[in-house]
């Protein structure tokens, strides 16, 4: 295609090459050109590397937890060691893995590409967000190295403020710092969505992934400051002996819980909304079918984001909160389940009359729908007060939120990672390995976490490392599943790293997908598009009879010619 262009001027050609060079191409600056990168795509990769590291640190902690729970007598770790390990697992996984998981990687990489922009609105701020998150994470790891933290990720006072003999303050400060990084990311994305859409990219032509990132960013901006102030008060109580949450001096520990869950419940939506966006993109592509009920999906995303702010009290049904308040929060929690249900129905309906193929991203996405459905439905149990009284603080809750966050968000992350892998790296991944890992992950996940629902209704409390012997069989089952799951998580690390170097080069649009990100080369040039795209149609204009190319017949050679 480009071979028809006859270069007139050597200087002009050189300039054109620079503009068209991929964002991965070196500018001759060595490591510092990455550590000081302001290109949103490079920052996305920085985030991806960081969260991968945190995922394996948090995963190592999870391994220790499952190892310890094989025996009911706690042979392997002491009380304090176990408390440190699950606290590490929680803090790292929540704030340094799940919260940045999809927004900071795919959000960063794809938001400008999907709306036809050259970059985010504030590129330097974007880099600053990464450093804030990194510094926060280092603070938490330092707190662990200096003797550990044993409060659990929830930092409930008065244990965290007055009784714990561990490095609570350092960890809390780390979380606050990372929180500012999250807020900055949210501000950046919302401003980008408002001001940098390409000509013709109207609000209702935006891909649903952009909508979910937009809604997520609003939640980040509105919820994270509340966490920051709450943890600041905990740090002040701890460092200066203030009594804000001290029940013996007229304070109220429940005040902390209100403030904490005002953040931490919406934080669940920070994790799951972008996952829903990823899955929508993947399902529509591999079903070759317009998303069923696009407008309804948009309204569902926005209402989840808003209603998600008023359900926090369902974490406090047994806390000593008033019964009337519990009923109000129970009611609101049932309401918030409706838009989530709509999304599941719409994904299913998108498959109807499609031309479905089952590449790895689709397998991960369908796995997401299954696991998220279970996670969401068990949420109904926790919204009903009498059942919540029985299962809160037990493994039922543990299983529920792992289904939503790991079965949901992490499956969706892998769906997106495989789907956009050719776009990000310019190379294809090994398909059969990926399909096998997807199946293994789904199986291993259920094997690990389904027994925990049963354990929970039986009453096995969470955060116990010594437990009654009658719970052992189910715990052994769960630990066995964890081995499978760990293997499934290690596989992509192996074959994707391999694909980075030896994968087949990818064409610009290997899936024949719609969406602006596929209209530029793979990997994209530094400023994303050689000329600003003009948008004339909706995001999912798959034609009803369009047939996907077979995986083997992907237009690799055509792509070579395209270069």
């Amino acid at each position: 295609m480009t071979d028809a262009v006859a270069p007139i001027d050597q200087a002009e050609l050189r300039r054109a090459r620079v503009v068209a060079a991929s964002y991965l191409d070196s500018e001759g600056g060595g490591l510092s050109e990455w550590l000081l990168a302001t290109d949103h795509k490079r920052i996305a990769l920085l985030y991806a590397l960081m969260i991968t590291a945190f995922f394996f640190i948090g995963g190592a902690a999870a391994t220790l937890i499952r190892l310890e729970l094989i025996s009911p007598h706690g042979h392997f770790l002491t009380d304090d060691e176990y408390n440190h390990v699950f606290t590490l697992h929680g803090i790292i996984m929540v704030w340094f893995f799940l919260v940045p998981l999809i927004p900071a990687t795919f959000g960063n990489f794809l938001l400008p590409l999907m709306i036809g922009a050259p970059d985010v609105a504030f590129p330097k701020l974007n880099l600053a967000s990464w450093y804030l998150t990194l510094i926060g994470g280092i603070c938490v790891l330092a707190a662990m190295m200096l003797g550990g933290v044993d409060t659990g990720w929830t930092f409930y006072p008065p244990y965290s403020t007055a009784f714990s003999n561990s490095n609570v303050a350092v960890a809390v400060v780390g979380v606050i710092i990372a929180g500012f990084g999250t807020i900055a990311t949210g501000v950046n994305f919302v401003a980008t969505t408002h001001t940098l859409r390409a000509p013709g990219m109207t609000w209702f032509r935006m891909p649903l992934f952009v909508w979910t990132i937009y809604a997520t960013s609003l939640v980040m901006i509105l919820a994270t400051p509340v966490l920051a102030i709450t943890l600041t008060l905990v740090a002040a109580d701890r460092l200066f002996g203030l009594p804000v949450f001290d029940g013996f001096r007229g304070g109220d520990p429940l005040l902390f819980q209100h403030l904490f869950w005002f953040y931490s419940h919406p934080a669940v939506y920070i994790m799951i909304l972008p996952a829903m966006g990823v899955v929508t993109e993947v399902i529509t592509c591999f079903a070759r079918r317009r998303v069923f009920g696009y407008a309804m999906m948009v309204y569902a995303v926005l209402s989840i984001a808003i209603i998600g702010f008023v359900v926090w009290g369902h974490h406090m049904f047994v806390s000593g909160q008033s019964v009337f308040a519990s009923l109000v929060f129970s009611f609101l929690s049932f309401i918030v389940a409706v838009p989530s249900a709509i999304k599941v129905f719409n994904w299913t309906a998108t498959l109807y009359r499609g031309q479905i193929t089952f590449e790895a991203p689709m397998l991960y996405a369908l796995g997401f729908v299954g696991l998220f459905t279970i996670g969401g439905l068990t949420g109904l149990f926790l919204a009903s007060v009498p059942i919540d009284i029985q299962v809160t603080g037990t493994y039922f809750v543990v299983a529920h939120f792992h289904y939503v966050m790991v079965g949901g968000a992490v499956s969706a992350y892998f769906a997106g990672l495989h789907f956009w892998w050719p776009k990000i790296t310019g190379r294809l991944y090994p398909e059969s390995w990926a399909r096998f890992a997807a199946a293994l992950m789904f199986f291993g996940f259920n094997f690990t976490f389904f027994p925990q629902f049963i354990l929970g209704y039986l009453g096995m409390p969470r955060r116990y490392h010594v437990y009654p012997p009658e719970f052992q069989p189910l715990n052994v089952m769960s630990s066995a599943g964890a081995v499978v799951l760990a293997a499934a998580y290690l596989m992509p690390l192996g074959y994707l790293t391999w694909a980075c170097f030896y994968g087949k080069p990818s064409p610009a649009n290997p899936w024949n997908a719609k969406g602006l990100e596929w209209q530029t080369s793979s990997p994209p040039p530094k400023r994303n598009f050689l000329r600003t795209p003009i948008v004339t149609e909706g995001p999912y204009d798959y034609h009803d009879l369009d047939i996907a190319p077979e995986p083997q017949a992907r237009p690799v050679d055509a792509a070579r010619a395209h270069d």
Partner: protein
Amino acid sequence: MTETALASRAPDPLREPWSDLSRQREAATLGMWLFLMSEMLFFGALFMAFSFSRALDPAAFAEAARHAEIAYGAANTAVLVTSSLTITIAVRAANAERATLATRLLAATALLGVAFLVIKGFEYRDDLRNHLFPGHDFALGENATQIFWAFYWAMTGIHAIHLTVGVALVLRLFWLVRGGRMSLASPQLEVTSLYWHLVDAFWIVLFPVLYVAVRA
């Protein structure tokens, strides 16, 4: 040095990824407002915590609040609203390309900010002399009066940190504009003034609530 010379030496305020300044300004203002929204939740949650704790024991809060020095609070309020005036006019002067006026008013704003911190320092000294920091030698006993004073220190302390950041930002603008290293057309002036106003707004609520309303 003439004002036009100052303006012409300054670098182009246009930044990546923008191709026109008005769009960039729009994004910067929106970004700052979004950050202010976040800050409003930050301070708002603090006020929620304060009101919640007061509702648990209004009597103790009333007694405790009687020890807060209204004179210091009122003086500081006057200083801070004045600084909001000076920064507003500084931005308007910059828009009218009156570089000298703008830099002088920026300097005045920073000075007023420092004056606030100095007055606050004297107030803190008095509070400490009167044993009003919660702890073992707290003057009012082992009860919810300590909660009021915990909030007093937390809220005024967090405000002081915000104000210190604000002073640094205004001083930075002052140096950059005076040295001709920043164009008067840069969106940073307006964005910084928005932040300054927010810090002022926080105090404007804090003074009547903490020093006066709770006494009742």
